[in-house]
């Protein structure tokens, strides 16, 4: 039971990152390898605003998410759009995002230095004990905020103009553009939203795991695995994939072997790809987003 409890907050952050991958994949048709580094960037920005500028946690988080969204838009406009206009194959686009990730990581190294930074939790670090179960207030905050953001995303996709446009582009890029939707604008929206979600994940996890310049690498890969397990491009699938991966890691790490934890979670990925190549949660008649 405690294992499951430990897996939830981790799973929630994986789910947020996975959402970013799926959103971009569904609409723009590329993988954004800088997704994990958006989490790192968000965590550092929030850390700077909170610890050095002295803003509260919530304003810091919102500003950091907004900044990350801006960076996401810039990546789309400055890197992907020019490549796409030149009709580069999608592998080039994917490699370009990998380049963005490396640049982001090294910039962070220059700006914030190599040492991990402490980012205290806004809700304190007093353990809450229920029977033999223990958890931190931050764990609850992570799960709560993550679920809130997921609902917000659903609202955005279903009931706003931009969201509807995004879904239309995801369904059929060509048809959407014929219907008068500016698909490039839609790509920007997808990148901005994904970056903001990634930043939120990074900020939420920072009080537990510190802020480091290379935190994006691991969290990015895990988020990607979660997205693939849930079916790349599938929004509910990404959320489910995140939680499945978080819980698998927690249980496998505790009950089987901690040294093989990553091997087990990647083993799950291979198993899913083998049995259900389009992901656990894909329907036969696949509707993206």
């Amino acid at each position: 039971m405690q294992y499951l409890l430990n897996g939830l907050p981790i799973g929630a952050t994986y789910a947020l990152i996975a959402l970013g991958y799926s959103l971009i994949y569904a609409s723009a048709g590329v993988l954004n390898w800088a997704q994990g580094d958006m989490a790192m960037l968000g965590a550092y920005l929030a850390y700077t605003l909170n610890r050095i500028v002295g803003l509260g946690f919530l304003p810091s988080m919102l500003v950091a998410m907004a900044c990350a969204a801006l960076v996401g838009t810039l990546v789309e406009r400055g890197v992907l759009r020019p490549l796409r206009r030149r009709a580069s194959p999608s592998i080039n686009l994917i490699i370009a995002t990998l380049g963005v990730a490396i640049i982001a990581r090294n910039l962070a190294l220059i700006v914030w230095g190599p040492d991990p930074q402490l980012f205290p939790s806004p809700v304190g670090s007093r353990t809450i004990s229920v029977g033999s179960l223990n958890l931190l207030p931050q764990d609850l905050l992570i799960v709560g905020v993550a679920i809130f953001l997921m609902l917000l995303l659903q609202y955005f996709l279903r009931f706003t103009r931009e969201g509807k446009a995004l879904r239309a582009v995801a369904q059929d890029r060509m048809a959407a553009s014929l219907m008068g939707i500016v698909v490039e604008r839609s790509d920007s929206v997808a990148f901005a939203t994904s970056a903001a979600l990634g930043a939120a994940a990074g900020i939420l996890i920072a009080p537990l795991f510190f802020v480091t310049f290379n935190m994006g690498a691991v969290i990015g890969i895990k988020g990607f695995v979660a997205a693939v397990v849930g079916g790349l491009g599938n929004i509910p699938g990404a959320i489910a994939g995140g939680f499945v991966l978080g819980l698998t890691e927690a249980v496998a790490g505790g009950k089987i072997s901690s040294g093989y934890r990553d091997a087990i979670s990647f083993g799950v990925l291979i198993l899913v790809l083998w049995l259900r190549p389009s992901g656990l949660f894909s329907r036969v008649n696949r509707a993206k987003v």
Partner: protein
Amino acid sequence: MTLLRKISVFALVGVLSLSISGLYGCGGASQTKVLKIGVAGPETGGSAQLGQAQHRAIQLACDEINAANAAGEWKLEPYFEDDESDPTKSASATNKLIQQSNVNVVIASINSSCTLADMVVTERAGIPQITAGSTGASITEQGDKWIFRTAVNDELQANALVDYAVKTLGIKKASTLTAADSYGQSGATLLKAAAEKAGLNLVVTATYNGGDKDFKPQLLSMKEKGTEAIFLWGIYTEAALIANQARTLGINGQLFGASGMAAAKLIELGQGAVEGMLLTQSFLPDSPDAKVKDFVVAYKQKYNEDPIPHAAQAYDSVYILADAVKRANSNAPQALRDAIMNTSGLQLVTGSPKFDEKGNDVGKSVLITKIEKGKFVLVTKVISGQ
């Protein structure tokens, strides 16, 4: 045609001989004898604080020795490379130091896996190497005659920690949580051996990968088996996370750690969770010893911070080299190596260095320290036996 050729050959020969004599002239002019010391260490990455401390201490020691002519006619010239705690990068950094900077001796590295990679390079090149930071037992078990270790050997540390746990604290059931690299695994093996010797029951022996953030699964299984103490073997970032998560899970047992994680950053990141943690170290900045005091004052004056044990060990290593080059009066690798081997009678910051045939400094003392109110304080001193 032939005339032109002759002229050009003449010109070429002339230019060559000029440049050769030029080179000679250069060599003749700078008759000061220089010992080039190559330093590889992690200046970025997970153990950056340790590598930066090593860099600063070596620079300080070289400056002091050169100013006081403490190495006779010899001047010390350090060359620094960053290895990012990565064995591959460490080996290429060492290679670069030897091939490009033509160093006579190498001080490398901090992470044991890096030091092992560097040893392949120095052994092939036949250049003496000192590690001032690596404690992994396997380093001096390779039969490599070029390696010397001025860090405290892990075996001593493991024995000191386990003995203290059993004899002084009366702990019976303990667990180990060690990094899955050569440093952590050598620690795990030594802790196991020490526990068997002292009659300590190890209920869980878990490992983690470098860069792991979530240790709750391992900690939970320790909690379920009723562990009274946890021995950690790794670096400070993970140690701080482990301490935080252990306290979150309601594990209040004694935490033990080895010198690899004894840094100010451990206390900063671990905050309340590392209070009361016991660690072995080779050096404490507030010791009353005169040598220690002088070093701490000089270091603080230059860098405006307290030196950590890695700094003290690196600083001592340079003094050992200064003494060796003075006695050998040569920077030839073999002569230098033999002189280091015969080091004796020096009184340095971390003890009186003396090397055994494997290259271990057996003149060191091990301090057991405790984190109290955010500071390392001395609990007891164990003089190294062998």
